[in-house]
């Protein structure tokens, strides 16, 4: 519906909409819109978490949604990215951030290929188990290896280099009236411990870059190779698709994005420890992808937003928070197993199935 309406607009109008929405999303932490803003925790910080979740979910979607490979150990790549930044900027070297991030991504890609090359030959459930093991192995190695800071982790990871240019005031809402709040400003563009908003902007920019790359990939030969492999691996082989190579590519791309968001996480946090990379996080990443609608990038974005944002928005639920979240996931699994925004393909297939059913019923009657 939204898609069709959007497509019906003339080209300049479409560009205008995209630019406006993008600006609005960038300005979100400054605007502090009532109802949306979080009361219990810093809104900028929450938005940063949400943006990094979106990043992770987009990466995992390539693996799970596009190539159809169930990865239960995605947090492993996230950890590789985070630890690479940690040891190269703080523990063993003091390289600068722009140098370290590509290294972190590369390290994640290498770990993805090392894990994928032997395991992508197995299918289905076995792959899930092997990846599950991988995630845990990374964490347990980090706990036991002094070289990685052991259980205590690595601290004093520096912020990225800043260029403080000017201050942007936030908006405060008083009784439904927006007011410019000069006492609360964000310095453009300075990374700091207190103000998470520049980090949010950084994460959001990465999300936008990945979104563009994602849409290019999806419609390319690579995207079609993934799709056919997911639908029927043997038949894809018969079409001349080198399925193993494409599965490995999906794994490597997924790992790269996972590593990137891990690097971002380590930088924002200033500290990493093995506790940050538990199995539960892998499950949450997967939940974001599945809840949103695996295979549809906008669905996955929505899923990640919900999974990361709702628990923060409803912090006042306290102990009931996780319970409610679990319950919501279950309700969703029953009522909308294909996700909130499934790929168009799934929708189309469902509509046709329903149509055929009704025709068959009609024929019997």
């Amino acid at each position: 519906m939204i898609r069709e309406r959007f497509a019906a607009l003339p080209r300049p109008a479409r560009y205008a909409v995209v630019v406006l929405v993008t600006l609005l999303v960038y300005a979100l932490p400054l605007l502090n819109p009532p109802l949306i803003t979080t009361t219990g925790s810093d809104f900028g910080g929450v938005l940063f978490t949400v943006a990094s979740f979106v990043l992770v979910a987009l990466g995992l979607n390539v693996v799970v949604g596009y190539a159809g490979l169930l990865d239960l150990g995605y947090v492993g790549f996230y950890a590789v990215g985070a630890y690479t930044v940690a040891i190269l900027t703080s523990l063993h070297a003091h390289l600068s951030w722009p140098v370290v991030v590509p290294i972190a991504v590369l390290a994640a890609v290498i770990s993805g290929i090392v894990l994928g090359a032997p395991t992508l030959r197995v299918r289905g459930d076995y792959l899930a188990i092997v990846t599950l093991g991988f995630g845990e192995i990374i964490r347990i190695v980090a706990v036991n290896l002094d070289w990685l800071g052991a259980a205590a982790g690595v601290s004093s990871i520096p912020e990225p280099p800043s260029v403080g240019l000017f201050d942007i005031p936030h908006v405060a809402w008083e009784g439904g009236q927006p007011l410019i709040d000069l006492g609360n400003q964000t310095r453009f563009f300075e990374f700091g411990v207190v103000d998470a908003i520049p980090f949010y902007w950084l994460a959001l920019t990465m999300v936008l870059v990945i979104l563009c790359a994602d849409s290019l990939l999806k419609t390319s030969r690579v995207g079609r190779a993934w799709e056919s492999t997911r639908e029927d691996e043997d038949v894809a082989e018969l079409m001349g698709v080198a399925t193993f190579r494409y599965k490995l590519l999906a794994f490597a791309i997924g790992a790269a994005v996972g590593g990137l968001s891990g690097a971002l996480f380590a930088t924002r946090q200033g500290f990493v420890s093995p506790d940050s990379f538990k199995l539960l996080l892998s499950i949450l990443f997967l939940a974001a992808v599945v809840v949103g609608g695996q295979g549809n990038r906008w669905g996955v974005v929505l899923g990640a937003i919900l999974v990361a944002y709702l628990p923060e928005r409803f912090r006042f639920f306290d102990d009931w928070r996780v319970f409610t979240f679990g319950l919501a996931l279950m309700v969703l699994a029953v009522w909308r197993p294909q996700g909130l925004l499934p790929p168009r393909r799934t929708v189309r297939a469902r509509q046709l199935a329903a149509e055929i059913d009704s025709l068959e019923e009609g024929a019997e009657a």
Partner: protein
Amino acid sequence: MLLEVEGLSVNYGHIEAIRGVSFGVEEGTIATLIGANGAGKTTTLKTLSGLRKVREGKVVFDGTDITNLSPEKRVKLGISQSPEGRGCFPGMTVRENLDMGAYVRKDRRSKAYAEDLDRVFTLFPRLKEREKQVAGSMSGGEQQMLAMGRALMARPRLVLLDEPSMGLAPKLIQQIFAIITEINQQGTTVLLVEQNAAQALKRAHTAHVLETGEIVRSGTGTELAGDPAVKAAYLGGDV
């Protein structure tokens, strides 16, 4: 010979699926492998396409030894297969399925490509009507046509058809076999695997009978159709 198979043996674990299978397919002909369920027909085709590893023996295509080639390279050389059953990509539309058939080709915007698409739509007018429909929502017969049309989109020299008549209504079976003959007359060599021996033998130039993984009889289609043992076993014949 376009395709030569020499002493081919394939295992599933410790079980021999086919052993010592040898036959050839002459360029421009229709060859058929007939046999009961589990005789090794599908295994033979999958091995020719490169989906199964060869334990022993050799496959030569147009003078090139392809025994250990990847499926991708075999498609590029000109062997394509229409798999058994509903071998379509169910979530893709008819057109997308056909495009997948041409995956190894890099000339999607060329005239040759449009001609090939046209050829498929002429052979199977039903596919043209359903171009935008999702394959998984079509009938068994339509999916079979799609699988065959898709195999042709690779512009193969040799097309391997795995049980194209399986599960179809008698009228449709006639139609499918007529199309197979037409495909052959247009210049594509066909290797057909069938349980419907009567139709297959009628259409094929050469035929081989596969029993528990071995070829037990070979001859021309008419010869085998007249063979009393073949009649009794596969043609439900007058014993």
